[in-house]
């Protein structure tokens, strides 16, 4: 396919709008689209009627996480704030100006980090802290149980906040950035400083190296069935197979949406093996994993896509660019 020449296009079903600032994350809170902006603002609501919520006044949003009901943001003001579908911003934590570097959310539990300090708040509101060996860049809750993965230099650590005793360390040389568990909890995958992903099979801590990226992978998305992990960082979305017990070891990944522009954001459809891909040149595509068929959502132009998210039903796709341009796709029928 050549740029902008997709035979199939959904571009006419996209409502373009101005987010009013650099979009750093997209989410749906219930049915309401939400965009987190770099300048500390969350826009919540339909494009023509979006509320402007100053969650980090005068500061910047550094990290976000959303579970479909709550959008949590961490700022360079040292605060962690949660916004719900009601549009009310509630402060979760204030680390006194220390930057919030990572966030994780699952159910009523939330975790955040500032430098080496990792904090986890359970459903009862009890906050426990753990000191990582070096600054933490990524946090993720394991799908089951109150267990948290934190990435740092030379590996990741699995921490049960409610359990006394030393956390389990998974070692791999290099600086680890984002963290994500496979939906079945069998694998932990991290993105790395060295343009690679690293994975551990948790049952035996076996290492998995996923390399060959020209750039850093900062967007990771699991398919609804948990069998595939889509990634950014190349001139296509590289999609790794995780169905087998060995995960992607010894298998070649698939490539979706091959173009001459770097993939910046990926989002798997919540019900089908269809991947939404945002590129550094502003293009947004849908790509079907089975046959790599592509559907155009947004033509190139305007700069990198910084935010991309499906709603829970998979009927709407929200995207935002660094330029502040944004769009909401309503899938027809």
């Amino acid at each position, binding site marked *: 396919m050549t740029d902008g020449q997709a035979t199939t296009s959904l571009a006419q079903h996209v409502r373009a709008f101005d987010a009013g600032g650099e979009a750093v994350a997209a989410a749906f809170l219930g049915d309401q689209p939400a965009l987190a902006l770099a300048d500390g603002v969350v826009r919540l609501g339909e494009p023509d009627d979006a509320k402007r919520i100053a969650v980090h006044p005068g500061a910047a949003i*550094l990290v976000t996480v959303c579970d479909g009901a709550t959008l949590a943001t961490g700022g360079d003001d040292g605060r962690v704030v949660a916004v719900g579908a009601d549009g009310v911003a509630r402060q979760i934590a204030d680390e006194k100006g220390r930057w919030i*570097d990572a966030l994780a959310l699952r159910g009523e539990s939330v975790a955040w980090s500032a430098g080496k300090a990792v904090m986890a708040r359970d459903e009862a509101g009890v906050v426990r802290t753990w000191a990582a060996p*070096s600054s933490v860049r990524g946090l993720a809750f394991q799908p089951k149980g109150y267990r948290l993965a934190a990435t740092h230099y030379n590996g990741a650590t699995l921490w049960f906040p409610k359990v006394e005793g030393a956390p389990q360390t998974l070692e791999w040389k290099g600086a680890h950035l984002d963290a994500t568990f496979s939906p079945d909890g069998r694998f932990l995958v991290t993105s790395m400083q060295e343009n690679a992903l690293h994975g551990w099979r948790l049952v035996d801590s076996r290492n998995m190296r996923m390399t060959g990226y020209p750039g850093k992978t900062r967007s990771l998305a699991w398919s609804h069935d948990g069998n595939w992990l889509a990634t950014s960082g190349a001139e296509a979305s590289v999609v790794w197979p995780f169905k087998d017990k060995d995960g992607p070891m010894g298998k070649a990944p698939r490539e979706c949406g091959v173009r001459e522009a770097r993939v910046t954001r990926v989002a798997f459809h919540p019900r089908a093996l269809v991947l939404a891909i945002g590129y550094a040149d502003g293009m947004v595509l849908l790509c079907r994993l089975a046959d790599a068929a592509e559907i155009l959502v947004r033509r190139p132009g305007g700069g990198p896509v910084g935010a991309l998210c499906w709603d829970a039903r998979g009927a709407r796709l929200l995207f935002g660019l660094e330029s502040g341009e944004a769009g909401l796709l309503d899938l027809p029928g």
Partner: protein
Amino acid sequence: MSEAREGDKIPVTVLTGYLGAGKTTLLNRILSEPHGKRYAVVVNEFGEIGIDNELVVGADEEVFEMNNGCICCTVRGDLIRIIEGLMRRKGKFDAIIVETTGLADPAPVAQTFFVDEDVQKVARLDAVVTVADARWLAHRLRDAPEAKNQIAFADVIVINKIDLVSPAELREVEARIRAINPYATLHRAQNCDVALADVLERRAFDLDRILDIEPDFLVAEDHDHDHDHGHAHEHHGLKHYHDEDMQSVSIRLDGDVDPAKFMPWINRVTQEQGPNILRCKGIVAMKNDPKRFVFQGVHMMLDGDSQRAWRADEKRESKVVFIGRNLEEEAIRAGFLACAA
């Protein structure tokens, strides 16, 4: 992060200097002058900055080795994270100043700007500025390898506290500095009272600015009138020292070099001796190339490009400079001269 044009990239000044030399004094001076610029400041210890500056970020000086088979390839992991975070405030500041601890090696900071693609897209290293204590530097050069590194690495050296030394002692310390790094620009100061233009916006890592790499034996004449009036000729009669382990090697070759010989050679030298080479730069006349080839490097990392054309009135010659520890001078010299076209 979108790709910024070179001129749009945020300049980053790295401020180094041994403990007590006066880094914080210089930083406070930069922040308090009415220059109309907005700085984001990365510091290691909060509380030392006496100026209200809304963008002060605490750093952890986390030095990471890169898994790329290059043993000296270290970066400042915290700086990568901080610059990524600062870009969320794009447009709200004009430049970044990174203050390192007194014992820090400037190399990982500098290499961060060569190695990390995301950092490279948005920021450019402007210069390494080292503050030296006129009274104590000579001692530190003997007992503190960190202090020697900071001098060897510097683009600009502020010799501070000159009011505490005699003119003879000052010349002595300048000669010691020159023995290690003949290429940095020197400025004499009391309480770090240098003009901001002398330390900021230097573009020392900009290939287009590598116009001349003649040793800068003349101390900038900004603050030394009272001290040295009537003795200016002594600048030229500078004492020559030879530092035992840190040297600079400068080699000139009349005429052109053969790129088929030069490129493998410069790559090999920086790969094999990279851990010992702190800085290198050069202007090279490539055979059959009307343009000057310029390069500069930090340890094993090299950055080079074709620059402007040689002028008709300009002699086509090639010159390379290395600053480093225990350099194999004769081998480097012979290797470069063998690249002649």
